[in-house]
């Protein structure tokens, strides 16, 4: 039951060979075994969305997957967004539009929005709002998050 599984997680293009119990969630493995602490944990039961990462192209709650299920999968976290010292357009838009205060929810919102805009750059406003309602923020009141994502969407469409 407590047997360890040897697995490899490819996080932001880098391979991490780790050994975890089956009960280790993907979120905990990313943070503890792989040392990538940009992914946050709020509720640990699927409600808040701050643990959102992109697994094989899909934005998912990393607290609701076990790390063993992701052996060999391609995982993207907030650490992979910036290009060297250059922030991702969404990160820049979050700064410009004051879309964060404490910043606890920010990694989840960024990964959710990145995944969705990459999949569907022309997404309609109503659909975008519906998708952003997936995650919780206790500080901003959401209005600036929505503004930032809309602005980044417009910028990402141009390039």
């Amino acid at each position, binding site marked *: 039951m407590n047997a360890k599984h040897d697995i490899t997680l490819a996080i932001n293009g880098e391979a991490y060979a780790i050994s975890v119990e089956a009960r280790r969630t993907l979120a905990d493995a990313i943070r503890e075994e792989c040392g990538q602490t940009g992914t946050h944990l709020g509720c640990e039961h699927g409600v808040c*969305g701050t643990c959102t990462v992109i697994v094989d192209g*899909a*934005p998912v*709650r990393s607290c609701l997957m076990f790390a063993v299920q992701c052996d060999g999968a391609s995982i993207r976290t907030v650490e992979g967004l910036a290009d060297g010292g250059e922030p991702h357009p969404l990160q820049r838009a979050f700064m410009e539009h004051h879309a964060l205060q404490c910043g606890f929810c920010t990694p989840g919102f960024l990964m959710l929005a990145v995944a969705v805009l990459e999949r569907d750059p022309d997404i309609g406003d109503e659909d975008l709002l519906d998708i952003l*309602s997936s995650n919780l923020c206790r500080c901003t009141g959401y209005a600036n998050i929505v503004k930032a994502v809309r602005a980044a969407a417009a910028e990402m469409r141009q390039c």
Partner: protein
Amino acid sequence: MKPAAFSYHAPETIAEAVAILAEVAPEDGRVLAGGQSLVPTMAFRLARPAHLVDINGVEGLDRLVLDGDELSIGACVRHAAFHRPVVEGCLGPLLSSVARHIGHYPIRQRGTFCGSLAQADPASEWCLAAVTLGATMTAMSVRGSRQIRARDFFEGIMTTALADDELLTEARLAIPPSDTRFGFAEFNRVAGGFAIAMVLAAFRLEDGVITEPRLGVGGVEERPRRIAEAEAALEGRAPGAEAFRAAADAAAGAVDPMEDINTSAGYRRDLVATLAFRALEQAGRALEQAGA
């Protein structure tokens, strides 16, 4: 909290999966599909299964195909597969509009149609759809395979006719006649929350009057069901506010609503009347748009 320890199994074929299930089911071994209900339950330590049989790598379970006059939905087909209509005609758009009410977008990337049926939450949209549209479930075990009709499948809150060692391999939805009109209405207090009540309505028209009415209510009683009294109030009537109101009132009168800390039985009953009327109106509007 963190889930308790368990042994992990990752079969690659259905035969392997049911063989492992037969072995581990007596020790609370369970199927892991999308994990969007099971993992939170394990995090709360409300469930402490000793074994999990992960079916995500099982060949063929992600099949979503039109098979004769039925839509076959394999055990690993995610909620998100229904975001865009999966079949031509009236059923595809109906399933899309229902899918959008299930949790949130990231939940729908992992959670499965069949997992929802196996979970049998009274407020599950797919359970209501299965009952109202008349789905048939295929259950497999080392003892063989059997078909279970939706009305026999849901036994109560989070209780189904599946035995512990049975794998639900697919659900089959009958494709309704192409001129069937649908409406779906649900109420909840927060975005992405579970429904407090929901109604799925469908009917056809023959010579200007309603035929083959179906009206299913979910989230109100311990399991979703069709309300015969409401269907009787629609049969043979001209579509319109009068018939819809009669059916909505009949539905509200026929249900025996659950109560919880936020929601009284009376409140749920009122919601049934309102949502039934809205769902029927929506189906009526679908008629106008089709120029019928």
